[in-house]
């Protein structure tokens, strides 16, 4: 019963958040200078044709009319069509206005559906790598606050956080792919292509997890019930693994939720460097081409993902700690 009410309330809030994000993105995209129709039709198209296309597409209507039309489409699962990309997947831009091959424009939803799984795969693998690195170090530091494991964790985190990801990416490609030929790097042709970008991302987010975990483990370990537990006769293993870790999981979980959402929404640099065909690369191209429907679609999808991930995280948190009440 609690779960049903919780989900109903949070999903309702989530819909409002996504709606507001859409409204904001929609308005901002339309007040920036530059006419997308000119880009679509090509530089050489006559003015009358451009006006005609624009009117046909409804781009000359007032913004709220355009927004209402767009949102009613979104409600039915239609995110519109890309301004620029052809459905055939052929090369973009540059073509003349009377090129007949580009009449069929790609569905935004299809474009996102093709690339999102790639990014989810990358994000999940990055998260797994990050946890493998961070959990032992974080717990070890948290159990020995102020002593050398804690300091090692701090130094290691500082080094990780100061490495620029584009530099680390390029160095690792040079070392592991070009010199040692261990893993493939550029583009995508199978799961192995995910490993290197995921590892670079993991190095980037591991310090945050180490820090959050060591702080929360240390604070839980100083609580009364942990001190009393040994006097009550529990073993050190029971105390650490059954009580301390469970209690320090909630702050970590919140951090992981945020980190994962960020991985989904914006691994722009890494996907660009590794030419990884995910949402990030799609976003970069969409922005460069002023592909408004695509930018809007990506924004709405990532906002929705953000909302869903946070609902999921909060639900897990209430399972771990029954005192929480979101």
């Amino acid at each position, binding site marked *: 019963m609690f779960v049903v009410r919780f989900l109903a309330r949070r999903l309702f809030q989530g819909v409002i958040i996504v709606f507001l994000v859409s409204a904001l993105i929609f308005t901002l995209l339309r007040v920036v200078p530059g006419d997308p129709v000119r880009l679509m039709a090509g530089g050489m198209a006559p003015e009358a044709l451009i006006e005609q296309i624009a009117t046909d597409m409804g781009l000359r209507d007032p913004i709220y009319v355009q927004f209402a039309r767009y949102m009613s489409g979104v409600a039915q699962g239609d995110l519109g069509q890309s301004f620029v990309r052809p459905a055939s997947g052929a090369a973009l831009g540059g073509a003349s206005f009377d090129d007949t091959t580009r009449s069929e424009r790609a569905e935004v939803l299809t474009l996102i559906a093709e690339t999102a799984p790639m990014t989810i795969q990358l994000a999940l693998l990055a998260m797994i790598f990050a946890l493998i690195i961070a959990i032992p170090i974080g717990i070890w530091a948290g159990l020995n606050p102020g002593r050398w494991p804690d300091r090692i964790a701090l130094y290691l985190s500082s080094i990780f956080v100061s490495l620029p990801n584009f530099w680390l990416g390029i160095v690792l490609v040079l070392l592991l792919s070009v010199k040692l030929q261990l893993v493939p790097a550029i583009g995508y042709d199978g799961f192995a292509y995910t490993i290197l970008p995921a590892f670079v991302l993991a190095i980037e987010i591991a310090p945050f997890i180490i820090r959050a975990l060591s702080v929360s483990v240390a604070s839980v370990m100083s*609580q*009364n019930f942990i*001190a009393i537990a040994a006097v*009550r*006769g*529990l073993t050190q293993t029971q105390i650490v693994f059954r009580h301390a870790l469970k209690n320090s999981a909630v702050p970590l979980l919140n951090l992981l939720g945020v980190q994962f959402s960020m991985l989904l929404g914006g691994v722009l640099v890494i996907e660009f460097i590794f030419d990884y065909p995910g949402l990030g690369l799609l976003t970069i191209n969409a922005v460069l081409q002023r592909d408004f429907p695509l930018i809007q679609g990506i924004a709405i999808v990532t906002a929705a993902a953000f909302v869903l991930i946070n609902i999921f995280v909060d639900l897990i948190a209430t399972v771990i700690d029954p*005192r929480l*009440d979101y």
Partner: protein
Amino acid sequence: MALGTKASQTVLSVRNLSVAAVDAAGARPILSDISFDIESRRVLGVIGESGSGKTVLARSIVSWLTAPLKVTAGEIMFHGRDIVTDQAYARTLAGREIAYIGGNPAGALDPTMTVGAQLVEKLSAVRPDISTRDARDKAIRLLEAVRIPSADRRFHEYPFQYSGGMMQRVMIVDALISDPALLIADNITQPLDVTIAAQILKLMRELNEEFSTAILFICSSLPVACDASDDVMVLHDGRVVEHQKPEALVAAPQHSYTKGLIAELPTLWQDGPASEPQSPTRDQQAIISVRSAAKAYYVHSRGQAGMSRVQAVRNVDFDVFPGDNFGIVGESGCGKSSLMRLLTGLERPDSGTILFKGENVGEASPRRLRELRRKFQLVLQDPYGSLPPQSSIGNILEEPLKIHRIGSRSERRDRARSVMAEVGLSDTLYEHLPTNLSAGQRQRLNVARAIILEPQLLIMDETLSALDQTEQGKLLTLFERLQAQHGFTYIFISHDLTMVRRVCSRIAVMYLGETVEVAPNDRLFFDPGHPYTRALLSAAPTLEARRYRPEECLLEGEPPSPIDLPPGCAFASRCPNVFDRCHRENPTLRARGNSALASCFLIDEHESGPIPQESHNA
């Protein structure tokens, strides 16, 4: 019987134990040369003021000394084997043969696991031979034994769903579940209300007889220790200064420290008020007049749609006259602090009126309220949280004057210095931060900050609760002097009956948001009109012969939640004299003659007969 011979066995024998705080600077002794024995089925009480080493003693026995504390000499023999040198042996005893209960039940269990799961976990950890099923049955059986209502359901609840008193019962179960030979009870009743503490002590004695455990009962209150123990050991400055039977200790204390302690103990019935408090005449305008004040809060409670209504204050009625010392007593959750918020205008009542010299505080404009506040000031309970740590003492004192735009800079400075002198703070502290002040000095500073505005009414919300007996006495003397000089009226909000007995002329007793009794001091203590007052008096820690026997008056169970109050009298569920009518209608305050009021239907019956009532003033 086999048990009978077992009963005389010595369980723990401490010989010449010394513990010191050892660091680079050297060793500072905490405990010196402590020796005692405990036999099974006996309770040894240990008393001493804070800093006397009681808790360190408890922790050395359960092998819970943390750096820099170290045993420097002596031995702790458990069944003839030393646990100081044999750490491995000590580890096998922890939680199994030597159980420990601390003074902070609220934080003693993992908040994310059910109480039952943790009891089972503990028993399985110390006795791996017991199956989970048996452990579970034993836990539920013991929860029933400590009178947790519907124990098999409560077994699956989380620690935050238990009240403080219930949680302490759970910790008793946790300690006894492994059938330990020795139980260390370190200040277990300290955070509890008197009626709940009395229940816990009674329970502990019963369990002691049933389970033949030896108990080391550590406590800071002499009456409680004498009540609970077979022998009492007095610790002072880390040494045992006295070790006697409780009766002998009270009758003929040997050491000067014990003598002083007993002489200083406030009494409820023997001596009466320190200086006969005179109720001022009631033929004048009351300084505070509360009429059926009520305040409810709305809280979101888990697993329930919408908000729940918590009736913090329901029917409060009383008058306080100028120059009076008025006491408000009651246990935690009775609405004392919510009432304080209403009296000071921090919150407005939902209904009813609060008149300050005829002016309605509840309806005053914010601007008028600020002006009125100069006339009534508040002194809070927590000496640490109530002072800003980064302001100098002078600034803290001058701030109220600045807020009310009184005086020039130098005038304010002079006023601050003069109130500092009045409350007994040295002039040299003016520039200092409050960081290094003791709790007593901090409360003096709080009083100084309140009286610098020359108020007429001072509301003391548990102001003395955080202080030890000696310091309390000094501050009470200060209050008396200030009253004589400035003609203050005091309202003391407190749970401490002995303090109220000493200083107040009229006392209101609160239970679940209602004033159930309002009476002059003597009348309240010698002829209480409400069964709850009698229960409070029977549970109050004192060495005197009790006028009200705990067996007759002590309450079972805990107060109902202010969220879903039963119909009728709120006290009915715990009242020893309950009858049909109590469950149907709620009694209101009714006169008992001589300005005494109580809300109990029994008064109608008693008072209907012509019983002449004598009170100390009319």
